[in-house]
């Protein structure tokens, strides 16, 4: 199933808003426009890949402050900044804050559409990654605590025999737990298992 992405446009100028929606529609992109950062925040964002086209000079709250606010709220939507007079420090700040692009008005249509595409791709990738992480997390959580322990020792490079000794069980038991863990994690190989565990398990939790 393909998800229909949405582009959010936040600009205080009605003409700019409607013209951006029109432009985006010509490449089949659906856009929703807002006249302020607040009205955008009040809207419940749909759970689809999205990208934000944001004017830097918003009344009440500058676009850059808004970018920081979004980050503080853990909203990681890619942002394409629009500005009437982008100075270098401003664009540097925006890009450091994770902006996709910083375009000076009036911009070339292709530049905007490219930037929006990059933003949507980036969001799609992030969502994939999150989904993958959530899946890994669920799988990892389905392991018993003993299986998790065994896995931690496996990826630390210990042999079954050593693990058995460490845990005070039989090597055959370790083998069973290990293969069950591999199965539950849907690991194709030891290398695959290690990769997945490293993703879900912060280093501090790894067996030392």
């Amino acid at each position, binding site marked *: 199933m393909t998800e229909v992405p949405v582009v959010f446009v936040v600009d205080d100028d009605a003409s700019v808003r409607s013209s951006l929606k029109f432009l985006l529609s010509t490449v089949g992109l659906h856009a929703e426009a807002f006249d302020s950062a607040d009205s955008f925040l009040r809207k419940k964002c749909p759970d689809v890949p999205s990208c934000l086209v944001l004017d830097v000079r918003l009344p009440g709250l500058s676009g850059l402050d808004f970018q920081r606010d979004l980050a503080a709220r853990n909203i990681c939507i890619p942002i394409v900044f629009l500005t009437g007079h982008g100075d270098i420090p401003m664009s540097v700040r925006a890009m450091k804050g994770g902006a996709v692009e910083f375009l000076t008005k009036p911009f070339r*249509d292709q530049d905007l559409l490219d930037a929006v595409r990059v933003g949507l791709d980036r969001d799609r990738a992030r969502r994939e990654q999150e989904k993958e992480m959530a899946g890994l997390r669920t799988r990892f959580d389905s392991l018993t605590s003993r299986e998790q322990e065994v896995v931690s020792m496996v990826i630390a490079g210990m042999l079954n025999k050593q693990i058995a000794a460490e845990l005070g069980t039989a090597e055959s038991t370790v083998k069973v737990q290990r293969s069950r863990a591999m199965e539950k994690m849907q690991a194709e190989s030891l290398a695959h298992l290690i990769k997945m565990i490293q993703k879900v398990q912060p280093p501090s939790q790894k067996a030392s």
Partner: protein
Amino acid sequence: MTASIAHEVNQPLTAITNNGSACLRLLANQNLDPEVLRRALEEIVADGNRASAVIARIRGFIKKAPEEKSELDVNEVIQEVLALVGPELQKNRVSVECDLRKALPLVLADRVQLQQVLLNLVVNGIEAMTAVTERPRELLVKSQIEESGDLMVTVRDSGTGLSSEADRVFTPFFTTKANGMGMGLPISRSLVEGHGGRLWATPNSPHGAVFSFTLPATGSSS
């Protein structure tokens, strides 16, 4: 200042180029519905007019009309301006008090420019008080002679007052009004400075703002 003008003009220009580009794209795909085209063209025309209106407004402000300086009684100019805004004052239920120093020395000034400055300050004062409901809306216009011998005119309101950055109001295109252009005060300041005076803002106590400007006296008196 040029950066701010750029912003004002850039908004309609951005809309124009977006609408134009969108039409070109649809045209290239042979997918341009006449109705869509008509709407886009209407918007383009409206935004073109908007951009030229911005430019016309700026031109109007900075037009170098030949200055006609003559010896003026500032009190007279104050009275003229207050007469001019009489209906505005009434409509907004603003009471005006004048505290005009008698026998004010004359100043060498362009009457129209001086009117423009005073009008701007008085209208700003009125507009700053439209949101005020829990206290009287009072405007005080005062003329006096400074120790240096220069004239000083102050316009004091009981409005919403200035934020911490009082001097920002003199930045071109800075505005707190929904339909403001943000050009009145910067232009007023440049006009006053063109007459060898100063224009500044301070907070009024307990509410509102005070705008003051000075003008050098000529030496002759009214």
